[in-house]
């Protein structure tokens, strides 16, 4: 409870990176990390949904505790997330049809992105307050975007590399993700 805000941010962003240390949000991480440009925008969309979810999860939890029905939390979280994603989808479709096409199926799939529901659950488990939750969501979003961008950078280069045919595809991507994960383990010492 008495973690400082900067600790929460660094923790969520680097040390316990959602993708590389907690395995949350692997599907879009593997699916949308082909191009740098798309990766950045996907990261932004996910960060936005994370922040909104964090706020609503805080409200829902308070409400459910007040009426004594904590067993409804999972169902209410997922309903709120699905609604938020729908909102973001309409927004992007209206303002940037090109991006809408580039993200494709992965846009509606944000609602089944474990990172989002994971954030709501972890935040509730740790008993974060409103501001702490907000910082946690921002850190998680930044970490997700960072991982996605790094991965996209590597994969753009890999397209030109000579790789045996059998290895190409998911197996290669996973191996790269493993190396990135090893690199992020180096941040472990940062934790206070």
């Amino acid at each position, binding site marked *: 409870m008495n973690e400082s805000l900067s600790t929460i941010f660094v923790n969520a962003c680097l040390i316990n990176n959602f993708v590389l240390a907690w395995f949350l949000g692997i599907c879009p991480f593997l699916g949308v990390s082909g191009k740098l440009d798309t990766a950045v925008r996907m990261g932004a969309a996910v960060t936005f949904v994370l922040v909104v979810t964090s706020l609503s999860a805080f409200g829902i939890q308070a409400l459910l505790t007040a009426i004594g029905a904590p067993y409804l939390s999972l*169902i209410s979280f997922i309903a709120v997330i699905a609604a938020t994603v729908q909102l973001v989808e309409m927004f992007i479709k209206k303002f940037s049809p090109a991006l809408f096409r580039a993200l494709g199926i992965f846009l509606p799939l944000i609602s089944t992105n474990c990172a989002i529901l994971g954030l709501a659950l972890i935040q509730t488990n740790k008993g974060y307050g409103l501001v702490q939750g907000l910082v946690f969501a921002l850190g998680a979003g930044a970490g997700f975007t960072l991982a996605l961008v790094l991965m996209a950078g590597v994969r753009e280069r890999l397209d030109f590399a000579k790789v045996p045919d059998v290895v190409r595809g998911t197996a290669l991507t996973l191996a790269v993700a493993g190396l990135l994960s090893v690199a992020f383990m180096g941040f472990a010492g940062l934790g206070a």
Partner: protein
Amino acid sequence: MANDESLATTSPTDEFLKGLWRENPTFVQVLGMCPTLAVTNSATNAIAMGLATTFVLVASNLAVSSIRRFVPKQVRIVTFILLIATFVTVVDYAIQAISLGLHKALGAFIALIVVNCIILGRAEAFASKNGLLRSALDGLGMGVGFTLALLALGGVRELVGRGSLFGVPLLWDGYQGWVVMILPAGGFFTLAALLLFVQWRKRAAKEVTP
């Protein structure tokens, strides 16, 4: 409903068997990666996660299949997700009642079964178009296939990382575990290796029967 006829040619046992290898959710469809990687640092966790997911799969497939004629198309995804969330809540409380230690080890990932793409994927792609029996068998097959994949991953990681299986030491005394296999990075590496093996097997099979 056009799919009803085309799928009716496969026998019910085939509906079950396809999940084990030919359409294995983990190795062939590469779905549900998050729990696959996160909870497979020991064989016990892997089995528990696999069984919980199998239960939710079968239950949600049955439920979705039985209401498939009454749900309007526009709201079907939301309906499916809410159904799945209900079953996951049941599993969450059940595991907490059976073994608190296991519940701690799996952590948030039990609740995260809700967003496992395999379950929504089967509800949408199969159960919403097929009858009760087939849907149940499909769910069971996918669940068992998922469990086997998790067990393969968890087994390899625990054996190499700790020198044991299900907590029982198997390798010689003084075996130095590869800590990296227990850590997140090991999950990525092991899955990459297993996927590579599956890909290589498929390629070999294709060359034999062109």
